[in-house]
């Protein structure tokens, strides 16, 4: 049953992807996940990897568009370690691939 719900959620048109460029240091994930937790924003998925020479990372956040998205973006932008925030609905397919891959490897 949960699998089906998850599948439906995956297809939900209100889901969007935020693509973040952030400083790459050990506290960054804490800063971002903490922001979502304490402001009661909904965070459905997260994928992160270092880019370039390793000084920065790229983070894809799967969020519910209807859930105070504008406020989420404004608050993320305020974080000193967040260098850029873009809403990338186009990245939905890419995130879906990652999710499928993670489901396969379990």
């Amino acid at each position: 049953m949960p699998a089906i719900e998850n599948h439906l959620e995956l297809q939900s048109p209100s889901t969007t992807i935020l693509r973040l460029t952030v400083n790459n240091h050990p506290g960054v994930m804490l800063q971002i996940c903490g922001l979502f937790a304490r402001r009661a924003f909904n965070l459905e998925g997260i994928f992160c990897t270092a880019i370039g020479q390793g000084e920065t990372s790229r983070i894809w956040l799967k969020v519910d568009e209807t859930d105070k998205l504008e406020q989420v973006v404004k608050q993320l932008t305020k974080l000193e370690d967040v260098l850029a925030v873009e809403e990338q609905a186009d990245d939905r397919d890419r995130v879906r691939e990652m999710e499928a891959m993670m489901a396969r490897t379990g």
Partner: protein
Amino acid sequence: MPRLNGAQIIIRQLERQGIRIVSGIPGGANLPLYDALAASPAIRHVLARHEQGGGFIAQGMARTTGKPAVCFATSGPGATNIMTALADAYLDSVPLVCVTGQVSRSLLGTDAFQEVDTYGMSVPITKHNYLVRSAADLLTIVPKAFQLAGSGRPGPVLIDVPKDVQTEMVEFESWPEPCPVKERQGEAHQSLETAAAMINQAARPILYLGGGVIHAGAAAEARQLAEHSGIPTVMTLMGLGILPSDHPLSLGMLGMHACRATNLAMEESDLLIAAGVRFDDRATGRISAFCPRAKVIHVDIDASEIGKLRPADAGITGDARHAFAGLLPFIRRRQRHEWNDRIRQLQQDYPRFHAEDFAPGRPFHLIRQVARLAGPEALISTDVGKHQMWVAQAYPFTTPRQLLTSGGLGTMGFGLPAAIGAALAFPGRPVVCFSGDGSLLMNIQELATAVEQKIPVKIVVLNNQSLGLVRQQQRLFYEQHYFASSYAIKVDFATIARGFGMAAYDLEGVDDPGALLQQAMAEPGPCLINVPIDIEEEVTPMVPPGAANTTMIGGDHARN
């Protein structure tokens, strides 16, 4: 080429930032920092008696000057103790740079002695924070911390420095320049014109001003705008002093403990010009019922505040001083007789004060007496509770940054150390701390700091032998089930103060309390004045938490 250790790099950069006073307490993990501080000819250290006190002393300096102030604490309990002062600074947007010691890098994450995750704990209560991983990084982190603390919407920045980073030697080319505070941004012409048109078209506008106006140094511009267009003005607790309390356009504080006429006028308003405010629930009451007929212009330096709680019809992201200065040329000069007459009518129907409030022995009488004796130059700090609201309602504030009070976090124990900080920043000015018997006990150890530093602060304790505001809520909303809100024992504050080496007076049972108060206020050094207050004295009116601001309980002319 300078060759110094991390601790020396920190201290030297504090000097270069113009820091002349640091408050704090040493401990195992920040001893290298204190060793470097001892060698500084420029910086005076103020030894607090509890790290929370140290943090609030720095806040007192920062709130009165508007510039970042610095406090030190050691790792573990030092860091946890100072967290409350950081959270308080975060909620009231006060610029602080807090440097904490941490266990050495090799011990991080091993539950070492006096190790806590200071970085992790401070994430949600600082504007930004650092765990320093090498001494060389301090050359960029320290200037950046000052820039962040003071730029845009100010706030606290924490730098957690492992002990071995403090002792690590670094050789470097030259000192980095102190980072200047970033220029405040102005706003596009067009949104200013839109907002100006709304103001010109409004029949019943109200200026709603908060701490952000003070941070922006925009009090003069705000006053100009109010006077130019005849706009009645309300202030949040953090905004008191923007307009002098006796200014004809001032409606005083809004919200939970505003006078009735103020909240009722807001109900009738058709345009809210909100600046440097965040629509806090203590100001707005039930937000869905707040100024229901009003359109909203929202000016704030922090874009995330605009539309956060109340949608804005016009949002201006920028500093209030630039916004007001930009708006003014587009605003028609008006008197707004009809609207101001209506407000005067409300004020006549529901007067702010009643003669009996000023009878001897009543809180307002005391507060006005102290104000007269302290003079218009005085800096005023409060603690949190009934006395705080009485001061907000009745003290004749005349200038911004005159009132230091814990608005957002509402920290009991704020008042005394904040007053010490204010006096350190402005040694020539009188400083008064209004406190309560509950609040004072939460940081009473700082009496020692005040005496040791010869801080001529006057501490006026409004003593009702209870947690008065808690008791008031139990009376109003918990069927008078008084529980844990009054003290079974009576504390002799005057004797305690004398034990700390401080002059003290007790107004209880004396024949002429007025004369004794005058004598106490004239003491050249620090002085505590205990003033008994009837436990049944209430703060009125009161909007019940979660209710609309028009639902005001208590006091004369009760409507509900």
